[in-house]
Structures are given as structure tokens and as C-alpha cells.
């Protein structure tokens, strides 16, 4: 299937992160086109026509989000590029930041022009030291060529981009916690409403978009929103980066059009299961989405609607492929430990629930599971859903519920026999 490499056009070139390589490949032309020939409204219109949905996991249409920014605010508008990439299983944004940072920077500049923002923050997770350096160098390269800074390309558009490093919190990938972190406070999500588009960073209107979302904007502006919408499916337009890890022959980051069949993806692009083992389970979009049994993934296409119909979510596209030799009880224990460690602690159901669930699973895997444990896990997960400040609580509860629902036999075996049904 032929489709344009919107996001991965440059990554295989040597020194792809250098600005001269980027310009040679046609880079920064979209920015020039927008600044010199399009109004802000027109840029927003193209993005709306493209119907590109947020690639961080929530899938909210970016053009609609940009439209929420009030035109008459007395405070400056900000853009925060969410480069926190904390969702377990997700490593797609780092590819762009390492190999094609200028693609991201051009996207940032286009977005800032569209929403009349003159200061953009790239909130990058603290663990990405090398990537932060690469971005800072790229910003300096762009500044030297007047793609960032004062009077960009001779127009009267000013823009500065700041790389802001996080300090190791998954919760700071949540947009309001991200804002709190940039403001120098503990990364604890805010109550919504008010939404960041109205009251965000430093109380000003703020757009927050994922790296991948912003990186698609240059192509959209150059080729037109309807061309982007023509790729993929009607409701899931364009291409998506999938970062695939697990028991496959070719793990890595892949750009595929939305609606690509999963079976084909696994067999051809991913090279099939490693060592010929059987596929057991798939987590399609990062650990926070429900796990899928192998039979549930039959005839599923990789887009928002299709995966949702099958019972899970596209999420961030952090796909984890699990083979028959994996103990699902242990897998859940490892995930639960992550959420317990990452809960910010602000609201009670998440703070105590994640800790409690992790404790129970440790105990089960340690061979000391008790009869009421599975009922407790289910009820605790139910008690955590739908009533917290941010969705981390839901993200922690959904794997618990889906693992218990689909692999209950393994859990029951473990408790009864004090060892794994699969690995012994």
C-alpha cells in the first residue's frame, strides 16, 4: 500500500537532525508558505479539514482544540508541546526528536502562528537528556537561519521556543500537570473546568499538543488538509506512528496509514512472531488501554474506531505484542507497580487504589494470594474509575479490569497453586 511518509520522511538519512539536511529535503517551506501567504484563520482551516486527531492518546481533533483559543484574551497565548512520552510501551516521539527535530520545530512554529502564540515550551521528559540536547541544538540552528526568533523570514511574526525538562513523572504528561510543572509547582493535575485553552500556562490561553501531532502539520500545510484527510479512514485520518515492542522479529517505530490491518502489520512489517511462538495478547496503544486476546485482534484495523469496536483503544500507539510464554499475572503486577509509583497522590481513589492493587498483586505473585483477592481487585478497580481529577486512575484501573476479565483462569491458578500457570 502506497502512502506518503509524512513523519518518517527523513529519519533514515545520515545526519537527518541537521538543518541543512532538513532544508535540502524541502523543510521549512510550509512555514514560509504560511507566514507569507496564509492568514491565521486559513492555517487553522487546513488543520481542521485534515481532521488530525491528537496523537498523544486522547484523540481529540487538533483543529477543534486550536479553535477554542479566545481571540480577545488580555494574556499571552502559549503552546506546550507534550514531549513527556510517559505511556509505557510508547517510544515514537523520541524518534522524531532524535532524527527529525526540525520537523517538530516547523510544526510548532506553524501552530504558534495559527493561534497567535509567541512562546512555545517543549516539555520533554527528564529522562530524555540526549534528546533535549538535540532539540536545543536544533533550535539554535533554526534561530541562526531566522526560522525562530524575531521577525521570522522577514515577516512580523516573533517566536521563541524553550526546551523545558521534566523530572521523572508520568503524570506530567497530563496537560494540566504539565502546566503546573512548567510553572514550578508539583506536577499535580488541575480541576477542569476551566480548560487550558481558556486558563492554562501562567493563567493564559494554552494549546497543548503531542509531538507527533505537531510534526504532521508541515505536511498538511504544504499539501492541504483534504489530502491528509484522504489518507486513512473517514474518522481516523492520516498516518500514525506505532512503536512496537515485544515478542516480534522486527520491533521498532513504524509509520502506517490509519486503518491498516493488524494481521498484515504483524505478519509483514513486524516480521511475525519471534522464534515462531504463538501470539497470545496485544496491548494496542500503551499499557493504559484494555488488553486484547489474540482472537479479539482478528480482522481489526489500526484506527480509533476499529479498535474501539473491538473493545480497546488506539491510545498512543505504543503496541506491546505478547507471546504464549508470558504469564499475564506477572505482566499485570509489573504494570500495577508502575501506576502505583506514578500516581501524583492528589486524589484519594488513585493514590490509595494504585498502591493497594500493587500490594495485592505482589502478594499473589509472591505465592500468598488469598481467595477474596480477585473480587477485591475487581471492586477496587471499579471504585477507581470515573471519579478522579485526571484519568491516571482510569488508566491504572483499566488494565486490571481487562486482564482479570480475559485471563481470569491464570489468576485463579496462581492463587490456588501458588505458582504461574504459564511459567511455573
Amino acid at each position, binding site marked *: 500500500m502506497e502512502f506518503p511518509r509524512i513523519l518518517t520522511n527523513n529519519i533514515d538519512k545520515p545526519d537527518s537532525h541537521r538543518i541543512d539536511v532538513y532544508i535540502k529535503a524541502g523543510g521549512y517551506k510550509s512555514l514560509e508558505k504560511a507566514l507569507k501567504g496564509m492568514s491565521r484563520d486559513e492555517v487553522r482551516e487546513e488543520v481542521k479539514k485534515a481532521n488530525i486527531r491528537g496523537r498523544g492518546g486522547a484523540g481529540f481533533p487538533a483543529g477543534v482544540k486550536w479553535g477554542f483559543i479566545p481571540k480577545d484574551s488580555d494574556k499571552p497565548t502559549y503552546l506546550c508541546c507534550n514531549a513527556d512520552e510517559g505511556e509505557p510501551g510508547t517510544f515514537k516521539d523520541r524518534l522524531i526528536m532524535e532524527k527529525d527535530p526540525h520537523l517538530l520545530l516547523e510544526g510548532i512554529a506553524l501552530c504558534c502562528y495559527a493561534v497567535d502564540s509567541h512562546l512555545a515550551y517543549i516539555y520533554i521528559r527528564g529522562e530524555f537528556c540526549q534528546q533535549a540536547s538535540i532539540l536545543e541544538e536544533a533550535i539554535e540552528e533554526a534561530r541562526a537561519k531566522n526560522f525562530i526568533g524575531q521577525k521570522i523570514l522577514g515577516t512580523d511574526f516573533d517566536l521563541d521556543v524553550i526546551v523545558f525538562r521534566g523530572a521523572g*513523572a508520568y503524570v506530567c504528561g497530563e496537560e494540566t500537570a504539565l502546566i503546573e510543572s512548567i510553572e514550578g509547582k*508539583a506536577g499535580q493535575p488541575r*480541576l477542569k473546568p476551566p480548560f487550558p485553552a481558556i486558563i492554562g500556562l501562567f493563567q493564559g490561553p494554552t494549546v497543548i499538543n503531542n509531538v507527533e501531532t505537531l510534526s504532521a502539520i508541515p505536511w498538511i500545510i504544504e499539501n492541504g488538509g483534504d489530502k491528509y484527510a484522504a489518507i486513512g479512514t473517514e474518522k481516523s485520518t492520516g498516518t500514525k506512528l506505532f512503536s512496537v515492542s515485544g515478542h516480534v522479529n522486527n520491533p521498532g517505530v513504524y509509520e502506517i496509514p490509519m486503518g491498516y490491518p493488524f494481521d498484515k502489520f504483524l505478519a509483514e512489517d513486524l516480521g511475525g512472531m519471534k522464534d515462531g511462538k504463538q501470539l497470545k495478547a496485544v496491548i494496542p496503544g500503551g499499557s493504559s488501554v484494555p488488553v486484547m486476546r489474540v482472537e479479539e485482534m482478528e480482522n481489526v484495523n489500526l484506527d480509533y474506531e476499529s479498535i474501539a469496536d473491538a473493545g480497546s483503544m488506539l491510545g498512543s500507539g505504543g503496541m506491546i505484542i505478547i507471546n504464549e510464554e508470558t504469564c499475564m499475572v506477572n505482566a499485570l503486577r509489573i504494570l500495577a507497580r508502575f501506576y*502505583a*509509583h*506514578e*500516581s*501524583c*497522590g*492528589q*486524589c*484519594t*481513589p488513585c*493514590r*490509595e*487504589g*494504585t*498502591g*493497594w492493587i500493587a*500490594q*495485592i498483586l505482589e*502478594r499473589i505473585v509472591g505465592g500468598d494470594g*488469598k481467595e*477474596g*483477592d480477585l473480587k*477485591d481487585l475487581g*471492586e477496587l478497580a*471499579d*471504585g477507581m474509575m*470515573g*471519579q*478522579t*481529577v485526571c484519568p491516571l486512575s482510569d488508566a491504572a484501573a483499566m488494565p486490571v479490569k481487562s486482564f482479570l476479565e480475559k485471563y481470569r483462569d491464570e489468576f485463579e491458578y496462581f492463587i490456588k497453586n501458588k505458582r504461574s500457570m504459564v511459567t511455573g
Partner: protein
Amino acid sequence: MPTLTIDGQEITVEPGTTVLKAAQQLGIDIPHLCYHPYLQIAGCCRLCLVDIEKMGKPQISCATIANDGMVVRTDSEDILRHRKNVFEFHVKNHPLDCPVCDQAGECVLQDYYMKLGLYQSRLQDAKLHKPKRVDIGCGVIRDSERCIQCSRCVRFCAEVTGTHEMVLFNRGDHTEIGTFPGQNLNNDYAQCLTDVCPVGALTSNDFRFQCRVWFLQSTPSVCPGCSTGCNIYIHHHQGVAYRIKPRVNEEVNGPWMCDKGRSVFKRITNENRVKQPLSKDRGLQEAGIREALSGAAAGLKKIQEQDGPGALVGVGSSQATNEENFLLRQLIKSFGEASHLTLDDRNCEDTLEDGILFRADPNPNTHGAKEILGAAEGWMPFEQFLSSVKEKKIKAALVLDYGLARLSEEEVKDLSNLEYLVVISSMKDTISEQADVVMPCAVFAEVDGTFTSFDGRVQPLRQAVPTSQGVKPGWEILCQLADVSKITDVRYSSARGVFDALCREVPFFAGKSWNSPEILVAGPEYIKMGGLKPWQTWSFR
């Protein structure tokens, strides 16, 4: 003005009112932990969830603004289940400290367990352990295990005192409240943290293990620490006062009071209390009451006859009640029209010292005493009184409790110029040492009476604890003195009678009486006060 329906009842509220407040106006108490009416909304306990039609998930009522046409249910099966779940999470790591925790009896977790839970714990794993019994300064003790991370203490230190000492450290269920390592609480309102903390995580060192709260009786009064006149409750049991808590008065102190005020109840048991009348004739040792009173009466009468009433001065006190100052005026004036009255009102500015509650004037009744004494015939400004004493123009004085407490050493020495000095005093001090007769009087917690705050607000005190044998309220001593001096028109049987007379005679108090709503202490509720327990009367827990 939006109109909404809560549990089938309609109510119209001011724009901007939250659903929680609207429900409270209907008498529906939605359970909540982190919400406090005088602090910013945190929305983190998740206990106040309600179902609102057309809003998919349950919403927290403390943060949701009431809109016109909203239909709210606080008691649906779903919500009751949510509440139980959220509450279970709150107690998951909470230690079963009730037998040794001061908060027992006024603890929200206990109350809500009875209302929402009443279930067996299903926890099979260990509870987390965190620091306990940590002294964090200003008489506050922290127990991080009991903390439910409601963040009220953090918000209090950020919004009310602006000192930002309390922080939430760490993440997830290892979150702990505390002060920055090496630093302690350092503000004058730290004890308010023990009020806002809904559980026993922040407790008062003074009250630690002193008395179980269900034994405590609660008596409303006014703090005598400064001229703001914060409303308080004195909590006592079997005649002993154990602590002071602020009483909510939106117009005076809100729900707060300063730490200086909290410890004034220690005056009651101060070892310097005068317990019996003292007479110089006996070398300032204890004398019988009749002996002391007749001695005092005789002494004052002698000066009146010898040098005329102009040589006689009544020294009022801005620490004494309106009633006491008024009776002093009556008594002194009945010794003769030329007699004088004075009051030490030096350094009594009404400026807010700390920008919150505490005022520069450390006396609760300067305004009232001034109105009563200043309007009388023979009012003598205090500087004139001091020079008159020096020049021996004044020969005798009758002084109320704390009336001369702020004299300098020099000025105290000058008092020896007086031929006769009668002091009504609660404490032995440099003034009482000079006196010819010392009559032991009650402190604020042992009297009925009224104070007038800096802005002219007349507020009532009620007697909380009995005086020890031989000690009487100041107004009663003055009546006894009048009786012994054969003065017939200073005769009252209760503070109430004195106040009503005072209202008739002093223009400032015209129109008031003991039955006025502001004097009767929140109106008819006071009548029921005797049966209420502390947690029902003082808390915005």
C-alpha cells in the same frame, strides 16, 4: 439567579454558588473532607460526588457551579456506592489509632464511618508506615500516618498566613504532609491547623492526652488577648478548662484565632493567682473577706472625709468587662461628685499587627471602658493621673484587674505616694504588692459579662469554669464593697442586671440589653448550648 433541583427540592441561589453550598442551604449535608468554606477549593478527596443529569460522570459538588435547570441527586444508589468506595480508600492506610488519638470523638473519619461505611476492612496487606509524633513547632504535633492528604493545612499556610510552611512531599501513597526539612512552623496561627485538620494528623501539644472530647462542655466567650475580640469557645470538664477553640463569627474572626489567644486559658491556673483577700494590716497575708472589705471601705472613706472626694480615683481597666468598669464608675461617683475616673489607654492602637487578626492593642475592652469612664463627670486623662499621683494630689485609688498592669517601673514606684490603695486583682504582681487591700477576682473564663471590641461591637462572655473558693467576679466585689460602705444604689445580683443598668445610663450602649440578639450569643441557639458537644458547635472540620 439560577434555580436548581437537588434531591427533588428546588432552590434558587446566588450566581456562582457551588452545588455543595446550595445543598447546604437546603439542609442537605453532602459528605466532604477537603472542602473548607474559608479556603480555596482543592477537589481532591472526591467524597462529595453527586449525580448531575446530562453530565456523564459523577461530579464533585464542591467545585461545580450551580446552573439554571440543573437536576442533582445526592442519594442515588450509584452515588452511595461511590461514597463508600472513596471512603474505603481514605481509611485503607489510616492507622487504627483511635484509642490513643486526641481527635477521637471529633474525627470526620469516625463520623463518616458510622454514616457511610460500617463495614469490615478487607485489607489483607500491611498499612504504610510514616513518621508519627513529630513536633513541628508552635505546639503542633504531626502524625503522617493519620493524614488523609486533604491538603487543608497546605492551603491554610498558603492562603491565610501566607507563610507556606506545610507541603505535601513525595508521590502516590507515600505522600506525606510536613514542613521543609530543618524548618518548623513559624506563624502565629499555627494552632488553627489543629482546627482545620479533620483527623488527628495535626494535633495540639497543649491538649495532648489531657481530656477526651466527649467529656468536654463548650461555653461561648470572647478572647481577652487583644481588641479584635475573636469569638471563642472554652472547652472544659468538671470545672477545669482544657482548651480554647475559635467560634465562627463571619464579621469578626471567621473561623480563625491566633495562637496568643489560645493559651489565655492558662491564666486560670496560673500559680500567681490571688486566692484569698490580702491585707497590708496582716503584712499582705490572707485576711477574711469581711475584714478586707471593711478595711478597704474604711480606708477609702477616710480619704474622702479627710481630703475630699477629689483625692479619690477609680482606675478602670481595658481588661475588665463593661460591667466592672460601669460599677467602678457608680461606686466612685457615690463617694462624691468631685471624684475622678481614669483609664490607661496608652499604646492602644487598633492597627492590625499581623494583617490577619491580632491588633496592637492587647486589651479586649479599651473601647468599652473608654465609653463608660470617659463620659463620666471627673474623667481624668491618664497622664494627668500619673502626674497627680506624683504630686500627691491624688491620695487614694480603687483599681480594677490589670488597671495599672502596664505601668513602667518608675511609675510603679510613684504609687507609694498614695495613702490608700485598693486593688481588685486576679494575679499577684508589682501593683498588688503596693496595695493596702487586694481583693481576689475572677478571670475572663470565670465571669459572665461583655467586652466591647475595637470597632464598637459589644460581645458577651459566659462563665465557663467556677472560681475557687473566695474568688469572685469583679462586679460582685464592687457590689460587696458598696454594701460595706453603706452605698445603696450599687446593688445587683447578676451581671445581667449590671449590663441592663449600664445600657440605660451610658449613651454608647443605648438600645441594647442582655436580651439583644448579639448579647444573647447567636440567639435562641444559646439556650440549647448546654447540651451540645464541642464537635457540634465549633467545627468547620
